[in-house]
């Protein structure tokens, strides 16, 4: 397999299963474990692989994690565009994502907090006072049906017959 092809195959697989056993992955991709380990290490260095996270259903874990989507309208700054203001926002650890968005507003900020008060405090005390921020609109997520490509609500698998020709 070409190096690029190997990388693509690895990424396709671990995107949904970062806990893959390297030996097993090597068998499934028709290569050897050392190649897989090296490629992954390389891609980590090159920041193609940026991290390994765990998808948690906090509701089931008995915690009241609150997720807010905040639309932020911003005045772009000379020479720096949106980057500087984005940086100011993404450095807060409770901010889990910041995207530059086309359309009716400029930045989409995703915030995770443990209490409603915490989230609203963040918006009123940290976000809104920033001079370049013209306005914010905060939406709270009520239910996660699907997150990171995974359906979070229970599903029933249809049954196949046990043997068919």
């Amino acid at each position, binding site marked *: 397999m070409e190096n690029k092809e190997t990388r693509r195959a690895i990424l396709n697989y671990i995107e949904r299963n970062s806990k893959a056993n390297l030996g097993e992955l090597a*068998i*499934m991709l*028709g290569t050897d474990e050392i190649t897989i380990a090296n490629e992954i290490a390389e891609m980590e260095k090159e920041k193609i692989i940026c991290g390994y996270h765990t998808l948690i259903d906090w509701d089931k874990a008995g915690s009241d994690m609150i997720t807010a989507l905040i639309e932020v309208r911003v005045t772009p700054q000379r020479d720096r565009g949106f980057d500087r203001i984005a940086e100011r926002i993404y450095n807060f650890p409770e901010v889990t994502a910041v995207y530059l968005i086309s359309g009716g507003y400029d930045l989409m900020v995703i915030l995770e907090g443990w209490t409603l008060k915490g989230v609203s405090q963040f918006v009123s005390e940290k976000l809104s006072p920033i001079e370049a921020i013209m306005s914010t609109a905060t939406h709270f997520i009520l239910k996660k049906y699907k997150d990171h490509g995974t359906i979070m609500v229970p599903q029933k698998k249809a049954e196949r*017959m*046990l*043997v*068919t*020709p």
Partner: protein
Amino acid sequence: MRNPLSKKVVNLEPSGIRKFFDVVNEMKDAISLGVGEPDFDTPWRIREEGIYTLEQGRTFYTSNAGLKELKIEIAKYTKERMKVDYDPDKEVLVTVGGSEAIDIMFRAMLDEGDEVLIPQPSFVSYLPCAVMADGVPVVIPLKNENEFKLTAEELEAAVTPKSKILVMPFPNNPTGAIMTKEDLQPIVDLVIRHDLYVLSDEIYAELSYKGDHVSIASFPGMRERTIMINGFSKSFAMTGWRLGYACGPEEIIEQMTKVHQYAIMCAPTNSQYAAVEGLRNCRGEVAKMRDEYDRRRRFLVHEFKRMGLECFEPYGAFYIFPSIREFGMTSEEFANRLLEEEKVAVVPGTAFGACGEGFLRISYAYSLEDLKEAIGRLERFVERLRK
């Protein structure tokens, strides 16, 4: 009372395997490697289109040969993937699964006594369908040492002046064998020399793991003597939608359409609309499923090697066909004991022809977790037998 039954039907091989299937399907706690259909759900875009067409009330018959849009998409797809050009108006027929296409092709083409050359092990329908169409099935037993490909010598030895149709079931259910361009060339030469027609069952074409599938119809001189049968069941994970198609020369498709018209009327309308969406927008999902099957395939080949179970590396469909000759049991005995002792269901090779004796069909249309569990049990069983 008079005998209500047709001798022809009564004398059909009462698929010995039926009994085994019934036993297995009753065993709710068994885990299975015996299924001949994808474990993936039909891609959502396709299902959603099916729902939408119901909402829109598109619940009437379509024209006999199928929806025009669907036939156009099929012709486009076939040109792109199989490198064969068909006129969607006259050379494409939409059927109720690939199985119907097999049946009506034989009925449209065979007269009493015409011989149908059927390489086995292969799908269970060719032989009975040939018989029901008054044809005479001539089985060509394929060999493990040839990786269950059809060779020119085997074909040559089976041809008689009465031979009319050669069935080419590749990628193959149950063996997983494929035939490459180089493998096909000598077969093509013989087919043309003996003036045969070909039923090319390409239902597993998208599930080829060693380069793209090559259709026998794409060889010079073959388009006019081939009926290419394909469908949505395997590649698009649409088994229950019952949708297939046949492409071929107008002269034959026209007569097949006649049989289809009287027996079936038309393929399910809902499924046809859904399939249009599939061909237009779900090729990426087909590729993803293929990648997943390929990973499982490599995993299983590795596991069988590790267990010391003899089997060639299959490059098609979603089956692997290991030999169990070392245990001195018939395939059915082995399958029955494996089911009883370890609650794992596999299909004896003999379900697909007598020459499948000594082999098992193992399907990898299962999640990796399921495969691991089942293989673990199989290994335990095999080790017990070897003691």
